[in-house]
């Protein structure tokens, strides 16, 4: 079993400390408390196949961590375990105080790879799905979802069916649905993998802004190094199966959020090269 030291996401002075007394923004389904995330010696296998081994991870409240790695390295499994959809075979995963699957299920929300919008629901009703599940009437749920729709640039598309939306818009509706679950921890599984390059770049910029205005503790799984370094505060480069941490990179360029400016910055380029070398090296070791 391979282990690596715990990687803490460094916090800068602008970080808002988790405040248990912060008022709940019920209108937007904002979580009551910001929660940190901690993985200790997490291992998991499907039958004989070991997919994760000795995974350690710390995410401070309201920070974003990206997991980058080759496909099939267990990133998605890690997200599902964090989400509380399953218990890991070994080790512990805790979100705030909760270290059992049921507790994590309450505190984290998992956004699957494809948008998974329901064709039988209008855009606004897809976004409001978690509110309906929680027992709101259709009208209440729509009212609650509407302001968020506006902020995500979806105004005017409330009553449209998913199949009439573009890929980028569908992804934003799916993101609205994820936010409206009102959980403090977001787990995003390659949210932009199915999009074309231009839409993907747009949505990365947009996600960065969305997380600035709606701060959440976020784990972003991706196979795109550039996406990870651009969106996340910290990027962990994982090896192929069983996943272990090869490299830890802090956000290379802080401040500007214009993607075109960030990704061409020499510091960013250097960080990307380092990550890519780590990915390639990790594969060669095997």
């Amino acid at each position, binding site marked *: 079993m391979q282990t690596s030291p715990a990687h803490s996401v460094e916090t800068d002075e602008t970080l808002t400390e988790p405040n248990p007394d912060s008022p709940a923004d019920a209108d937007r389904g904002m979580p009551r408390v910001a929660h940190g995330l901690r993985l200790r010696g997490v291992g998991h296998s499907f039958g004989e196949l070991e997919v994760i081994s000795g995974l350690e991870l710390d995410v401070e409240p309201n920070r974003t961590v990206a997991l980058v790695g080759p496909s099939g390295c267990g990133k998605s499994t890690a997200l599902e375990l964090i*989400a509380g*959809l399953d218990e890991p075979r070994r080790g512990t995963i805790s979100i705030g105080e909760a270290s059992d699957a049921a507790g994590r299920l309450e505190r984290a929300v998992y956004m*699957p790879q*494809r948008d*998974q919008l329901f*064709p039988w629901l209008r855009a606004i009703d897809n976004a409001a*799905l978690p509110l309906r599940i929680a027992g709101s009437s259709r009208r209440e749920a729509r009212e609650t979802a509407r302001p968020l729709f506006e902020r995500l640039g979806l105004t005017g598309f409330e009553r449209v069916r998913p199949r009439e939306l573009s890929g980028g818009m569908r992804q934003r509706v799916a993101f609205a649905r994820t936010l409206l679950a009102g959980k403090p921890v977001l*787990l995003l599984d390659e949210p932009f993998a199915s999009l074309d390059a231009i839409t993907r770049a747009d949505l990365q910029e947009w996600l960065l802004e969305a997380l600035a205005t709606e701060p959440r503790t976020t784990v972003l799984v991706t196979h795109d190094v550039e996406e990870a370094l651009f969106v996340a505060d910290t990027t962990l480069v994982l090896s192929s199966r069983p996943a272990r941490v090869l490299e830890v990179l802090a956000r290379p360029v802080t401040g500007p959020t214009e993607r075109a400016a960030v990704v061409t910055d020499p510091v960013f380029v250097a960080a990307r090269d380092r990550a890519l070398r780590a990915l390639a090296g990790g594969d060669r070791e095997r």
Partner: protein
Amino acid sequence: MRRLRAILPPLLLLALLLVAWQFAARQDMIADFLGLDPQLVPAPSEIADSLWTNRALLADNAWVTFQEVLGGFALALAVGVCFATALHLSPLLRRAFYPLIVASQTVPIIVIAPILVVWLGFGIGPKIAIVALICFFPITVNTLDGLETVDPEQRKMMRSLGAGRVQRFRRLELPTALPYLLSGAKIAIAVSVIGAVFGEWAGSSEGLGHLMLVDNAQLEVARLFAAVFVLSLMAIALFGALALLERRFAWWGKDR
């Protein structure tokens, strides 16, 4: 315009066949070929004539058959959907019942019909039971298949959004299965009229099936054809109604 282009070829073919039939019957060609009395081979015009003169009789009997069909179909729909739900929710029930449901389809309905008449009498009861038995299988199996096609990723997503078993069933599995349910219902309704006729043949004093038996015995061939025509019309209308319901309430099935 596009719909007209879709409808036109079968309509033309039908018209052509009717004209050919009319001509052949009028010239006694069919009767001669079969070595029959020309009276036994009605032309389409004679059938239409019989349809008009017997309209009250046909309507009364069609109404009886219609009630049997609708009653049996409704029963099969209610029981089938409940059954599919139970089998979906309980793997044990599914393993126990599914093979038996499939095996039950090998028992010919015509054989059961007289037994049901013995048990349930000559009223509407045995007809409803027979129609329900015929409709039950396609509805149950299709609904169950639909419930099982739910994407596991969607199930995970629903769990993560806070949905328990009941919410997952109501907001994900049931809507996913609805188009399947309706295509099962369409198959069921198309064969349901045959069930009603079998039921009437096994013992009855009214209904289109009963009228067919009477016409057969009395060599009222034109009216026999008229009864068959009304029966087909009923099946087509019921099928069309379900197709409309499908378009209105389960259109997402066509998205796949």
